[in-house]
């Protein structure tokens, strides 16, 4: 049995009073999740008893730190079922992971005449890095459109592929606005059939669903620690070994070299080739604790819980006059409800909800093209659920929406 009350006790912030005096109803986990005590304590404990710089320190403290840091890599490897630990690279966040791919694989492999396929529902992190390189290299970006059901238009995708010259397809596994769970397995298979590599932005999937990079046969997979109960300051890039081996390094500095002379340098082995400088040691350790914690509960159970809450929330939202939701139907839906309320601007709505202790996100959620060019709105309100979210919190949200409507109309 999924015991949400017990899970909530693991998260100190959930029992903190909100400034309004009301209980905190935190419905913005898609932006960044809260942290369980085990994660906070792992980092605190590290700093209090174990901190030293990692790698090549020949003393007990440094070896303990190195061991803990590398153990976190092994945990992440198992969590997403990567084949080898060398395929797990620690970065600063999902954004950093995608920029790494674009600036190394992309800079090495893309040129004028090539096509990179993205989607119209991407987060800016999976659009802007490509646009920056495209401006320099002259390759073309094509976007898979979004249907009126909030799904990717796979027929257009097929047409784009058949038009030729596609070198990479990069898609979000789960949309951070619509909550759409995209058919990435199919997309990867089609990309490969046309000789393109497949990159998946997993920022909204790894925290919420079981992910198996080998089963997906994905080439690169990017995600963030802070959205999956882990700390800020750390991201992850999974890459297939043969691709990572062939790529030039991105950042230069300590730890990523084998040898440096005044004339030039040679590179260290994977994964270190891509980890220049002192890494986010405490953050990796916190992330490892987060992985253990999530695995203890079970990703399938978490997904189930959130999907149910999503269904319930959208049902209840439909009862509120003037609400329009922007989410697909199951099985493509996840634990996200995104909506507008007629006559009340999303920013005002978020502010009024906050007075009641309800934290939701309002704005374009770093997906301006989706809002302006697909949904034809400037902003929306998003309530996003996580393993600690409850039906009662959905009820509070709905009650507060009714109050807000009254006040504004």
């Amino acid at each position: 049995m999924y015991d949400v009350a017990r899970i909530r006790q693991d998260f100190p912030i959930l029992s903190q009073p909100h400034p309004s005096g009301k209980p905190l109803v935190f419905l913005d986990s898609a932006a960044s999740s809260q942290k369980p005590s085990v994660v906070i304590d792992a980092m605190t404990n590290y700093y209090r008893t174990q901190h030293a710089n990692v790698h090549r320190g020949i003393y007990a403290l440094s070896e303990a730190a190195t061991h803990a840091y590398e153990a976190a890599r092994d945990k992440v490897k198992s969590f997403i079922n990567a084949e080898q630990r060398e395929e797990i690279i620690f970065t600063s966040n999902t954004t950093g992971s995608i920029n790494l791919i674009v600036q190394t694989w992309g800079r090495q492999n893309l040129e004028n005449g090539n096509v990179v396929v993205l989607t119209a529902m991407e987060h800016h992190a999976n659009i802007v890095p490509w646009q920056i390189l495209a401006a320099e290299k002259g390759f073309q970006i094509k976007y898979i459109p979004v249907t009126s059901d909030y799904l990717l238009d796979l027929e257009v995708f097929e047409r784009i592929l058949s038009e030729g010259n596609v070198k990479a397809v990069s898609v979000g596994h789960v949309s951070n606005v619509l909550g759409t769970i995209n058919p990435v397995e199919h997309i990867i298979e089609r990309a490969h059939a046309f000789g393109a590599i497949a990159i998946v932005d997993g920022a909204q999937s790894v925290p919420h669903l079981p992910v198996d990079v080998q089963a997906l046969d994905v080439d690169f997979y990017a995600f963030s620690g802070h959205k999956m109960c882990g700390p800020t300051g750390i991201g992850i890039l999974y890459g297939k070994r043969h691709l990572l081996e062939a790529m030039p390094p991105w950042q230069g500095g300590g730890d990523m070299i084998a040898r440096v002379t005044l004339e030039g340098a040679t590179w260290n082995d994977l994964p270190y080739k891509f980890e220049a400088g002192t890494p986010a040691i405490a953050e990796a350790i916190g992330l490892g604790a987060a992985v253990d914690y999530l695995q203890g509960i079970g990703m399938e159970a978490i997904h189930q819980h959130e999907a149910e809450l999503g269904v319930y929330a959208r049902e209840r939202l439909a009862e509120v006059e003037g609400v329009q939701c922007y989410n697909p139907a199951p099985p493509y839906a996840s634990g996200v409800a995104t909506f507008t309320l007629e006559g009340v601007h999303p920013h005002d709505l978020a502010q009024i909800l906050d007075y009641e202790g309800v934290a939701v996100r309002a704005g374009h959620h770093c997906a301006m093209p989706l809002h302006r060019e697909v949904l034809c709105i400037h902003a929306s309100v998003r309530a996003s659920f996580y393993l600690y979210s409850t039906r009662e919190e959905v009820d509070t949200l709905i009650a507060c929406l009714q109050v807000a409507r009254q006040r504004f109309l």
Partner: protein
Amino acid sequence: MDIYQENILDHHRNPRNWKLLDPYDFHASDENPLCGDTLEITLRVDENDRVVAVGWDGHGCAISQAAASMLGEEIIGKTLDEIKQLDKDVVLDLIGIPLSVSRVKCALLSLKVLKSAVYNLESQQ
């Protein structure tokens, strides 16, 4: 404190001068790209450069729209020079309730557009 006091909501529901002037002497429009709030302002002045009419149009949150409505009323009768002197406290005082950092930008959009208009910065948009 709740910023949606009755006066804010009133200006939001019944915005004053919410119609662009035609003809006009000064004009500017701008957008806060991050939140999508838009605002367009037109002014008519007399022979002493004193504002005799204001007209505006826009879309956005209650704060940005109420601020535009209040500021529009405030500047009628002021000279262009006086408008150039206005600083953000004028708008914040009109709102009357402390705003959080993330909402101050909403409130100040109208002042930004107004200044663009009187400085004739139209072409920069």
